């Protein structure tokens, strides 16, 4: 098999850094690139949404128009409406809700909130997971009293894994004020266990790799070995997990909002738009389907990209 490995391996382009190589492989995956495209588009939408609903209010998500309740998408605004309350083109692009608020404007505002919850929560869980997993993996043998650092951290991780996370979040959210920041922190602090186990496992195997031993033999300080030699080699699979994690975090936020524990009005998130819409599912189905579809698309896009990244990192495809 030797011969075949080396000859097929060398067919992949030369003079590339490992990240370039990864990018080249990822580009070949059409579904992943579609996912990436959708995410980039949604990111632009989210930023524009933030700008046009809060800083320079073009689409006002908060205006209540009692004359224009439950308008279907693409219907025109009522003539009775004062000029200041009229939507930008005089048309409700995605209809209105039970208070006559413009769903398009609310979705725009919600897109930023939903995505930032996803990213910040995952950022927190990566930070916690990488630090704990890294310590457990690198300093695992060090003892504190009768137990090793590794045992301490990993048993704590196991304990966290035993708790039904969603109910823990519900309890915390019920006790704390349900601000958007609390939601981010709570989701982030309850989703790091997978990452820490991952990083620990990577570190344990990297520790035994000859290039890490060589770095130790060169007398390099520990921080440099951890952050320069081990971390970049452990990060690739973590990024894959994180990508899929963003989707999970967005779903969690939606579920919380759906149950009424999420981000509270007047902040719109896709989850609470969906939650409000559920009461009118037969009278005004767009209130339900529009945020539902948006959540479906973003979760799908993150998962496609995550799977594509996992494939591109597959050592069988990549030359060592």
């Amino acid at each position, binding site marked *: *098999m*030797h*011969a*075949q490995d*080396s*000859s*097929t391996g*060398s*067919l992949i382009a030369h003079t590339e850094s490992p990240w370039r190589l990864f990018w080249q492989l990822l580009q070949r995956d059409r579904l992943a690139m579609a996912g990436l495209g959708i995410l980039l588009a949604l990111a632009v939408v989210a930023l524009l949404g933030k700008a046009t609903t809060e800083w320079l209010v073009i689409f006002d998500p908060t205006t209540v128009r009692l004359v224009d309740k439950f308008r279907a998408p693409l219907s025109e605004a009522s003539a009775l409406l004062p000029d200041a309350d009229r939507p930008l083109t005089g048309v409700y692009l995605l209809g209105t809700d039970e208070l006559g608020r413009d769903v398009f404007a609310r979705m725009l505002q919600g897109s930023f909130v939903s995505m930032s919850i996803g990213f910040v929560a995952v950022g927190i869980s990566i930070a916690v997971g990488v630090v704990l997993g890294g310590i457990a993996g690198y300093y695992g043998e060090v003892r504190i009293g009768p137990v090793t650092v590794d045992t301490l951290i990993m048993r704590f991780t196991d304990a966290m894994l035993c708790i039904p996370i969603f109910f823990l979040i519900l309890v915390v959210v019920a006790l704390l004020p349900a601000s958007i920041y609390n939601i981010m922190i709570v989701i982030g602090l309850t989703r790091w266990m997978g990452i820490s186990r991952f990083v620990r496992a990577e570190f344990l195997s990297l520790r035994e790799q000859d290039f890490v031993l060589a770095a130790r033999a060169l007398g390099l300080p520990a921080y440099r070995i951890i952050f320069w030699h081990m971390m970049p080699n452990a990060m690739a699979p973590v990024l894959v997990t994180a990508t899929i994690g963003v989707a999970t975090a967005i779903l969690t936020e939606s579920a919380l909002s759906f149950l009424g524990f999420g981000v509270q009005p007047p902040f719109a998130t896709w989850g609470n738009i969906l939650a409000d819409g559920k009461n009118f599912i037969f009278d005004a189905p767009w209130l339900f389907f529009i945020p539902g579809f948006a959540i479906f698309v973003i979760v799908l896009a993150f998962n496609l990209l995550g799977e594509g990244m996992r494939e591109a990192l597959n050592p069988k495809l990549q030359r060592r």
Partner: protein
Amino acid sequence: MIPTTARTLSDDMSKRVLSLERLHVSFFTDAGELAVVRDVSLSVSAGETLALVGESGCGKSVTALATMGLLDHPGRIVAGDITLGDDVISGFSEPQMRKVRGARIGMIFQEPMTSLNPVFTIGRQLAEVLRLHRGHDDRAARLASLALLERVRIPAALERLRQYPHELSGGMKQRIMIAMAIACEPQLLIADEPTTALDVTIQAQILELLDELQKDLGMAVILITHNLGVVAQYAQRVAVMYAGEIVEQAPVTELFADPRHPYTQALLQSLPGTVDPGRQLNVIQGTVPTPREFPAGCRFATRCGEVLSRCASDVPPASRHGGNHVFSCWQRMESTS
């Protein structure tokens, strides 16, 4: 100088088990067609051991996989015939090949650690082969497994049948692999680097066992290796491969005593132990070219010390030196004729 193929090489046509005739294998990639095996002709007779020797990437494993019909995408046989007994197996369909593999051709690999399935017992894996190819029922398969383990000199065979691969040493696992390969008494055994992962004392055990089994069963053996010591001690004939081609083929004593091709000569001279320790080892400059960099003519031209002007552009024909000694080199062809 007549171009020579495998047909003229073998002493005894009636005993010939396998012959490759002008085999070409290419990999079809995004970067285009890569001719990883070019014009390979060889044959091996019953009871004979042919060593296929070369460095990594020389195409020796690809040649073996092509023979087994196990070439995976993007590899494909583009020309040439593979004949096993009276059958041209290169034309066989996959279902036909499945009946050939394991039954008429056995194969053992380099890594005994990964060649066995870790979740099944040894007994079950052996029995599976026997049920599949010999149609044994459970009881018959069990008895046959026991006999096989004893045949490959595994002590406490009954106990071994109940064990899992991880409970056995590397040498023991390689014996199990051999037992599976010979379960159907194949005509041909292909051993791809069978002892590379093993210690030298275990290597000697395994090669001794292979030798014994060959004598008992009258198999033809193709021994793929990079270890010239193993070649010298266990093969009757040698084919030296470089960059997808056989550059020289000869009986083993003749190859070591009178190598004709510059690559073979350089390879033998670069072995530690051939020169006085105080002196430098002879080296072949540079590295083996990747398939994309293969020269159009003689593929050794880029590293050869005695290169002629025509070497880079023209493929050297096979020329004979004595009865069974064939090599492909412009320089040597002219100096001998």
